[in-house]
Protein backbone atom coordinates (compact mmCIF):
# COMPACT_ATOMS: atom_id res chain seq x y z
CA UNK A 1 0.00 0.00 0.00
CA UNK A 2 1.20 3.51 -0.76
CA UNK A 3 0.71 6.32 1.71
CA UNK A 4 1.02 9.95 0.72
CA UNK A 5 1.76 12.48 3.46
CA UNK A 6 1.20 16.20 2.86
CA UNK A 7 3.06 18.47 5.25
CA UNK A 8 2.19 22.18 5.26
CA UNK A 9 3.07 25.07 7.53
CA UNK A 10 0.18 25.87 9.86
CA UNK A 11 -2.04 28.83 9.10
CA UNK A 12 -0.54 31.94 10.63
CA UNK A 13 3.06 30.72 10.27
CA UNK A 14 4.81 32.94 7.73
CA UNK A 15 5.92 31.02 4.65
CA UNK A 16 8.62 33.19 3.05
CA UNK A 17 9.23 30.63 0.28
CA UNK A 18 5.57 30.63 -0.69
CA UNK A 19 5.64 34.44 -0.68
CA UNK A 20 8.66 34.43 -3.00
CA UNK A 21 6.83 32.07 -5.37
CA UNK A 22 3.77 34.35 -5.29
CA UNK A 23 5.94 37.32 -6.27
CA UNK A 24 7.56 35.31 -9.08
CA UNK A 25 4.15 34.29 -10.44
CA UNK A 26 3.11 37.96 -10.43
CA UNK A 27 6.31 38.86 -12.28
CA UNK A 28 5.45 36.25 -14.94
CA UNK A 29 2.13 37.99 -15.51
CA UNK A 30 -0.14 35.59 -13.61
CA UNK A 31 -2.64 37.93 -12.04
CA UNK A 32 -5.08 37.24 -9.26
CA UNK A 33 -2.77 35.02 -7.14
CA UNK A 34 -3.59 36.13 -3.62
CA UNK A 35 -1.49 33.57 -1.70
CA UNK A 36 0.94 30.70 -2.22
CA UNK A 37 1.88 28.16 0.45
CA UNK A 38 4.67 25.69 -0.16
CA UNK A 39 4.80 22.30 1.53
CA UNK A 40 6.12 18.78 1.15
CA UNK A 41 4.72 15.52 -0.19
CA UNK A 42 6.22 12.33 1.19
CA UNK A 43 5.33 9.00 -0.45
CA UNK A 44 5.76 5.84 1.59
CA UNK A 45 5.46 2.26 0.35
CA UNK A 46 4.15 0.02 3.09
CA UNK A 47 3.97 -3.77 3.39
CA UNK A 48 0.82 -3.37 5.53
CA UNK A 49 -2.42 -4.34 3.76
CA UNK A 50 -4.87 -3.30 6.49
CA UNK A 51 -5.89 0.32 5.80
CA UNK A 52 -6.71 1.20 9.40
CA UNK A 53 -3.38 -0.16 10.65
CA UNK A 54 -1.51 1.57 7.84
CA UNK A 55 -3.16 4.89 8.62
CA UNK A 56 -2.37 4.53 12.33
CA UNK A 57 1.27 3.73 11.56
CA UNK A 58 1.72 6.63 9.15
CA UNK A 59 0.05 9.01 11.61
CA UNK A 60 2.57 7.91 14.23
CA UNK A 61 5.38 8.48 11.69
CA UNK A 62 4.06 12.02 11.15
CA UNK A 63 3.87 12.78 14.85
CA UNK A 64 7.35 11.41 15.58
CA UNK A 65 9.33 12.51 12.54
CA UNK A 66 7.70 13.57 9.29
CA UNK A 67 6.07 16.76 10.60
CA UNK A 68 7.10 19.18 13.32
CA UNK A 69 3.70 19.81 14.84
CA UNK A 70 4.95 23.03 16.45
CA UNK A 71 4.79 24.71 13.05
CA UNK A 72 3.39 22.15 10.61
CA UNK A 73 0.16 20.26 9.99
CA UNK A 74 -0.09 17.05 8.02
CA UNK A 75 -2.64 14.93 6.23
CA UNK A 76 -2.39 11.27 5.23
CA UNK A 77 -3.98 9.65 2.17
CA UNK A 78 -3.75 5.96 1.30
CA UNK A 79 -3.87 4.57 -2.26
Amino acid sequence: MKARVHVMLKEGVLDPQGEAVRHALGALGFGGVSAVRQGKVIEIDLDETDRAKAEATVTEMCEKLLANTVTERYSVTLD
Partner: protein
Amino acid sequence: MKAAVVVFPGSNCDRDLAVALRAAGADVRMVWHKETALPPGLDFVGLPGGFSFGDYLRCGAIAAHSPVCRAVVGFARRGGYVLGICNGFQILTETGLLPGALLRNAGLKYICRTVGLTVGTANSTFTQGYEQNRHIALPIAHHDGNYTADAETIARLEAEDRIAFHYVENPNGSAAGIAGILSANRRVLGMMPHPERAVDPAHGGTDGRALFGAVAGSLAVA
Protein backbone atom coordinates in the same frame (compact mmCIF):
# COMPACT_ATOMS: atom_id res chain seq x y z
CA MET B 1 34.60 19.93 33.92
CA LYS B 2 34.02 16.80 31.86
CA ALA B 3 32.45 17.74 28.55
CA ALA B 4 31.34 15.85 25.47
CA VAL B 5 30.84 17.27 22.00
CA VAL B 6 28.52 15.21 19.82
CA VAL B 7 29.56 14.68 16.21
CA PHE B 8 26.91 13.99 13.58
CA PRO B 9 27.52 13.34 9.89
CA GLY B 10 27.55 16.92 8.58
CA SER B 11 28.62 18.63 11.81
CA ASN B 12 31.21 21.28 10.98
CA CYS B 13 31.64 23.30 14.19
CA ASP B 14 32.37 20.32 16.45
CA ARG B 15 36.14 20.87 16.56
CA ASP B 16 35.75 24.63 17.04
CA LEU B 17 33.47 23.94 19.99
CA ALA B 18 35.98 21.47 21.47
CA VAL B 19 38.79 24.03 21.08
CA ALA B 20 36.72 26.72 22.83
CA LEU B 21 35.82 24.35 25.69
CA ARG B 22 39.41 23.16 26.11
CA ALA B 23 40.66 26.76 26.14
CA ALA B 24 38.27 27.33 29.05
CA GLY B 25 39.79 24.38 30.91
CA ALA B 26 37.34 21.59 30.08
CA ASP B 27 38.26 17.96 29.54
CA VAL B 28 36.53 17.31 26.19
CA ARG B 29 35.61 14.07 24.53
CA MET B 30 34.10 13.78 21.05
CA VAL B 31 31.10 11.42 20.88
CA TRP B 32 29.91 9.92 17.59
CA HIS B 33 26.16 10.02 16.87
CA LYS B 34 25.83 6.23 16.87
CA GLU B 35 26.85 5.95 20.52
CA THR B 36 23.91 4.90 22.69
CA ALA B 37 25.43 6.21 25.93
CA LEU B 38 27.40 9.28 26.94
CA PRO B 39 30.76 8.97 28.75
CA PRO B 40 30.26 8.42 32.51
CA GLY B 41 30.62 11.29 34.95
CA LEU B 42 29.80 13.92 32.35
CA ASP B 43 28.96 17.52 33.37
CA PHE B 44 28.21 19.05 29.99
CA VAL B 45 27.17 18.13 26.44
CA GLY B 46 27.66 20.38 23.41
CA LEU B 47 25.63 19.96 20.24
CA PRO B 48 27.64 21.70 17.52
CA GLY B 49 26.70 23.69 14.45
CA GLY B 50 26.70 22.29 10.97
CA PHE B 51 24.33 20.48 8.67
CA SER B 52 23.62 17.20 10.46
CA PHE B 53 22.29 14.61 8.02
CA GLY B 54 22.35 17.20 5.26
CA ASP B 55 19.43 19.10 6.81
CA TYR B 56 17.20 16.44 5.22
CA LEU B 57 13.48 16.63 6.06
CA ARG B 58 13.97 19.55 8.50
CA CYS B 59 17.14 20.95 10.08
CA GLY B 60 17.97 18.79 13.09
CA ALA B 61 15.03 16.40 12.65
CA ILE B 62 17.04 13.28 11.82
CA ALA B 63 19.77 14.06 14.37
CA ALA B 64 17.13 14.47 17.09
CA HIS B 65 16.25 10.79 16.66
CA SER B 66 19.82 9.49 16.51
CA PRO B 67 20.91 7.05 19.26
CA VAL B 68 23.14 9.60 21.00
CA CYS B 69 20.35 12.17 21.15
CA ARG B 70 18.20 9.78 23.18
CA ALA B 71 21.08 9.71 25.66
CA VAL B 72 21.38 13.52 25.53
CA VAL B 73 17.65 13.91 26.26
CA GLY B 74 18.02 11.58 29.26
CA PHE B 75 21.10 13.51 30.44
CA ALA B 76 19.21 16.83 30.20
CA ARG B 77 16.14 15.40 31.98
CA ARG B 78 18.41 14.33 34.85
CA GLY B 79 19.60 17.94 35.14
CA GLY B 80 22.67 17.83 32.90
CA TYR B 81 23.96 20.95 31.15
CA VAL B 82 23.48 21.06 27.38
CA LEU B 83 24.49 23.77 24.93
CA GLY B 84 23.20 23.63 21.36
CA ILE B 85 24.67 26.09 18.90
CA CYS B 86 23.07 26.80 15.52
CA ASN B 87 22.26 23.31 14.17
CA GLY B 88 22.55 22.21 17.80
CA PHE B 89 19.75 24.66 18.70
CA GLN B 90 17.64 23.25 15.86
CA ILE B 91 18.26 19.74 17.21
CA LEU B 92 17.26 20.82 20.74
CA THR B 93 13.91 22.15 19.50
CA GLU B 94 13.35 18.97 17.48
CA THR B 95 13.97 16.82 20.58
CA GLY B 96 11.48 18.93 22.55
CA LEU B 97 14.11 19.92 25.13
CA LEU B 98 13.50 23.53 24.07
CA PRO B 99 10.16 24.93 22.84
CA GLY B 100 9.45 26.38 19.40
CA ALA B 101 11.08 25.74 16.04
CA LEU B 102 13.60 27.36 13.70
CA LEU B 103 12.22 28.10 10.25
CA ARG B 104 13.72 29.45 7.04
CA ASN B 105 15.09 33.00 7.44
CA ALA B 106 12.42 35.56 6.60
CA GLY B 107 14.62 37.01 3.83
CA LEU B 108 15.19 33.48 2.43
CA LYS B 109 18.95 34.03 2.31
CA TYR B 110 21.72 32.25 4.15
CA ILE B 111 23.25 34.89 6.44
CA CYS B 112 26.89 34.71 7.49
CA ARG B 113 28.14 37.76 9.39
CA THR B 114 28.83 39.10 12.86
CA VAL B 115 25.73 40.54 14.53
CA GLY B 116 25.01 42.54 17.65
CA LEU B 117 23.26 40.77 20.51
CA THR B 118 21.80 41.91 23.80
CA VAL B 119 22.26 39.63 26.78
CA GLY B 120 18.67 38.95 27.88
CA THR B 121 19.51 37.42 31.23
CA ALA B 122 22.63 36.85 33.31
CA ASN B 123 20.71 34.37 35.42
CA SER B 124 22.09 31.10 34.05
CA THR B 125 25.34 29.17 34.24
CA PHE B 126 25.91 30.00 30.58
CA THR B 127 25.29 33.77 30.74
CA GLN B 128 26.46 34.66 34.26
CA GLY B 129 29.70 36.01 32.79
CA TYR B 130 27.81 38.81 31.06
CA GLU B 131 25.87 41.70 32.49
CA GLN B 132 22.19 41.78 31.60
CA ASN B 133 21.46 44.12 28.66
CA ARG B 134 25.13 44.19 27.67
CA HIS B 135 25.75 44.33 23.93
CA ILE B 136 28.05 41.69 22.51
CA ALA B 137 29.01 40.69 18.97
CA LEU B 138 28.97 37.08 17.74
CA PRO B 139 28.96 35.57 14.25
CA ILE B 140 25.83 33.97 12.81
CA ALA B 141 25.88 31.55 9.89
CA HIS B 142 22.50 30.03 9.10
CA HIS B 143 19.68 29.64 6.61
CA ASP B 144 17.09 28.49 9.13
CA GLY B 145 17.36 30.64 12.22
CA ASN B 146 13.92 32.23 12.24
CA TYR B 147 12.75 31.35 15.76
CA THR B 148 9.03 30.63 15.78
CA ALA B 149 6.71 29.74 18.64
CA ASP B 150 3.13 30.56 19.52
CA ALA B 151 2.41 33.78 21.41
CA GLU B 152 1.79 31.86 24.63
CA THR B 153 5.25 30.26 24.49
CA ILE B 154 6.96 33.60 23.75
CA ALA B 155 5.11 35.19 26.69
CA ARG B 156 6.17 32.33 28.96
CA LEU B 157 9.82 32.61 27.87
CA GLU B 158 9.71 36.34 28.61
CA ALA B 159 7.91 35.94 31.95
CA GLU B 160 10.32 33.24 33.11
CA ASP B 161 13.39 35.25 32.05
CA ARG B 162 14.45 32.50 29.65
CA ILE B 163 15.52 34.59 26.64
CA ALA B 164 19.31 34.40 26.84
CA PHE B 165 20.09 36.57 23.82
CA HIS B 166 18.17 38.99 21.59
CA TYR B 167 19.34 40.29 18.22
CA VAL B 168 19.99 44.03 18.28
CA GLU B 169 18.78 44.15 14.67
CA ASN B 170 16.65 41.14 13.77
CA PRO B 171 18.43 39.47 10.83
CA ASN B 172 16.12 36.52 10.19
CA GLY B 173 12.57 37.31 11.30
CA SER B 174 12.81 35.58 14.70
CA ALA B 175 9.85 36.11 17.00
CA ALA B 176 10.66 38.81 19.59
CA GLY B 177 14.15 39.01 18.08
CA ILE B 178 15.10 35.83 19.92
CA ALA B 179 18.64 34.54 19.29
CA GLY B 180 18.87 32.07 22.19
CA ILE B 181 16.65 30.54 24.88
CA LEU B 182 16.99 28.58 28.10
CA SER B 183 15.07 25.55 29.33
CA ALA B 184 12.78 25.88 32.36
CA ASN B 185 15.58 24.55 34.64
CA ARG B 186 18.02 27.00 32.93
CA ARG B 187 20.48 24.18 32.20
CA VAL B 188 19.80 23.81 28.49
CA LEU B 189 20.73 26.70 26.20
CA GLY B 190 20.01 26.84 22.49
CA MET B 191 21.37 29.72 20.43
CA MET B 192 21.82 30.48 16.74
CA PRO B 193 24.94 32.72 17.08
CA HIS B 194 28.33 31.01 17.38
CA PRO B 195 30.17 31.84 20.64
CA GLU B 196 32.85 29.25 19.74
CA ARG B 197 33.77 31.39 16.74
CA ALA B 198 34.59 34.35 18.99
CA VAL B 199 37.03 33.12 21.62
CA ASP B 200 40.38 34.16 20.17
CA PRO B 201 41.51 37.64 19.06
CA ALA B 202 42.34 36.06 15.69
CA HIS B 203 38.62 35.31 15.29
CA GLY B 204 37.96 39.03 15.16
CA GLY B 205 36.27 39.09 18.55
CA THR B 206 36.30 37.36 21.92
CA ASP B 207 32.75 37.96 23.18
CA GLY B 208 32.04 34.23 23.25
CA ARG B 209 34.80 33.51 25.73
CA ALA B 210 32.80 34.55 28.82
CA LEU B 211 30.19 31.88 28.08
CA PHE B 212 32.68 28.99 28.03
CA GLY B 213 34.64 30.44 30.93
CA ALA B 214 31.51 30.68 33.06
CA VAL B 215 30.37 27.15 32.24
CA ALA B 216 33.79 25.58 32.82
CA GLY B 217 34.33 27.65 35.98
CA SER B 218 30.96 26.70 37.49
CA LEU B 219 31.12 23.03 36.63
CA ALA B 220 34.77 22.59 37.61
CA VAL B 221 33.80 22.66 41.26
CA ALA B 222 30.53 20.77 40.83
